């Protein structure tokens, strides 16, 4: 391990890691781009590199990208990637309240805690935790996904009907395109552009970026928010705020790590679930969504904890935890390294290099963002008539680059209109996006669960973990109605 650590501090390797981490932060911060895209784009460059250096570059971009996503979320209300959607819920209101630097400081600390500790856990517990993940079947995966959606829907603004309706719309939208298992085309209406499904980047940029630009212009909101640069010391978060959020951070960390290490899940899910849990457990849930630092802590700790979490199945089992780890896995294979149970025995140097690079990248992210957190808000000083046209161009080009089809412009505009309509009728965006992201995984596991036995849907309710998760989902749905009734009963009993 010491050799791997020393190798990272060789001048060339260290410079590569530093540049790649910076690039990851920049890509993560730009709407429409992400660290994952950076990993995909730079994968071919690693072909001619030493495997250690190439892998270090890819891992650093990824770590930087996950953390950098919060910059756009906090300063512009536009998530750089799905992993920082929940950061917009309180990060952007904090910016509007003149607390941009404080929000960035909280997010930077939370990102570091999430990444560094999850990597340390992944480093030492990978084989044990990976075996645990293998115990879960499609029944548990389906129930976990449904439970996450129900939790987020129950805690969204509006009634539970609004939350669940938004989630159901997301699930329905995820059905567009080829169905899993049989490849049957659904709801494509004969269009080849829809057969691959709906583009997530177009959905995200439409719902957040374009919708917000139209809405701000319609409301005549051109006021540039104040920035709290002068009042900030250190990371801008007081010791009391850290201690008040200690349990929130621990809980969000566990959620992020757990969801990250389940194959097919990832930071896109963990940030929303951790946010919902933070709101539900808070003594002041009414402050959430209006600029509460607790929400930023929850979202950023959990999405970064998923980094270490998703490395666990990749390294120990050769199963990618999310899309980016799938590309990383490809990178390993290109260099002739087979991830899986034998990796620890055959290439321990690679395993340690992978974990130590991620750890070093998380420290570099912390330092780079600490010095940058006073500079990033300069973006807020740009008048909207300069800022918004650039965001529009980045949005349109962002959706084109991933797919090279002009049809995505239609999707982008359609989702901007959908976002405006959802806002008008009070349908929350969080459950909608979460359900859209989880839809394919839910359907695959629902069908697998039914197919694997002759008992139909029964195992979903008879397997203990699955049944428990479904019970939690049911309780979270009925609780808003059950709670007042129970209180009324108690009041009646007490006279």
């Amino acid at each position, binding site marked *: 391990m010491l050799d791997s650590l020393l190798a990272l501090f060789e001048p060339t390797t260290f410079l590569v890691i530093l540049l790649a981490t910076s690039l990851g932060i920049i890509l993560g911060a730009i709407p429409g781009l992400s660290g994952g895209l950076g990993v995909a784009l730079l994968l071919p460059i690693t072909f001619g590199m030493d495997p250690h250096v190439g892998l270090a570059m890819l891992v650093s971009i990824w770590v930087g990208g996950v953390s950098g996503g919060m910059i756009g979320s906090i300063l512009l209300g536009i998530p750089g990637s799905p992993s920082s959607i929940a950061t917009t819920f309180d990060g952007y209101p904090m910016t509007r309240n003149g607390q941009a630097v404080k929000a960035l400081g909280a997010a930077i600390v939370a990102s570091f805690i999430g990444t560094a500790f999850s990597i340390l856990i992944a480093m030492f517990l990978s084989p044990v935790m990976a075996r645990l993940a293998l115990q879960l079947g499609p029944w548990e995966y389906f129930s976990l996904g449904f439970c996450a959606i129900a939790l987020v829907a129950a805690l969204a603004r509006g009634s539970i*009907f609004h939350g669940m309706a938004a989630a159901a719309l997301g699930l329905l939208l995820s059905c567009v395109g080829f169905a899993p298992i049989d490849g049957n085309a659904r709801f494509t209406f004969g269009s080849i552009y829809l057969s691959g499904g709906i583009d997530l980047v177009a959905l995200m940029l439409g719902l957040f970026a374009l919708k917000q*630009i139209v809405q701000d212009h319609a409301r005549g909101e051109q006021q540039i928010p104040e920035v709290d640069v002068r009042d900030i010391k250190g990371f801008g978060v007081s010791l009391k705020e850290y201690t008040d959020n200690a349990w929130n951070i621990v809980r969000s960390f566990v959620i992020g790590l757990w969801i990250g290490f389940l194959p097919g899940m990832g930071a896109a899910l963990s940030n929303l679930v951790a946010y919902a849990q933070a709101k539900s457990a808070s003594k002041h849930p009414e402050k959430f969504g209006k600029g509460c630092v607790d929400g930023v802590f929850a979202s950023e700790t959990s999405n970064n904890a998923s980094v270490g979490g998703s490395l666990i199945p990749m390294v120990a089992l050769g199963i990618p935890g999310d899309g980016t780890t799938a590309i990383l896995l490809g990178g390993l294979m290109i260099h002739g390294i087979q991830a899986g149970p034998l990796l620890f025995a055959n290439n321990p140097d690679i395993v340690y290099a992978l974990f130590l690079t991620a750890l070093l990248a998380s420290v570099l992210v912390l330092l780079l963002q600490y010095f940058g957190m006073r500079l990033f808000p300069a973006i807020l000083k740009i008048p909207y008539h300069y800022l918004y046209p650039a965001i529009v*161009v980045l949005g349109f*080009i962002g959706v084109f680059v991933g797919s090279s089809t002009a049809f995505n412009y239609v999707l982008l505009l359609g989702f901007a209109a959908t976002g405006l309509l959802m806002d008008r009728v*009070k349908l929350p965006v969080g459950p909608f996006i979460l359900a859209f992201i989880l839809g394919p995984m839910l359907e695959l596991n629902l069908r697998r669960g039914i197919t694997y036995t002759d008992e139909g849907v029964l195992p979903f309710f008879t397997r203990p973990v699955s049944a428990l998760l479904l019970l939690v989902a049911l309780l979270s749905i009925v609780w808003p109605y059950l709670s007042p009734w129970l209180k009324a009963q108690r009041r009646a009993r007490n006279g």
Partner: protein
Amino acid sequence: MNTERPLGAALLALGAGGIALASQLSVRTFNNDPGPKLFPIFACVILVICGLGLILQRPAGDDRPLEREAVIRGASMAGALVFFAVALWLVGFYVASIVSVFALYWIIAGRERRVWWRGLVYAGMVTLGVHLLFSTALGAFLPHGLLF
């Protein structure tokens, strides 16, 4: 006007329509596989239940009505975005970007702040910046137009 009951009715209609459409999917399946119908129907059933719930529950109160001026401003911005999408499709990135960034600058800046040459210089800078980032640095393809 309250939006909950119209929303409930729309969700109900969408859910019912979705169930009807999904029911028409026919694929031969094996090993107890419920096929591609089940999941869309599952989502539509939730929509129907939520639609009924919104229709039957007591409305939370009237929503703020839309102001005419806000609608006009929003429509002008939406029109500019649609124009950009059509221009990208027809004439490609470089022309569409310069024209649309200038148009967006002109609309957002308003009468008090807009200066034509600043808008033009800014449109050129944004176009060049995006070209350098996507085409030069990342090696990605920028949109080509149908016409040229």
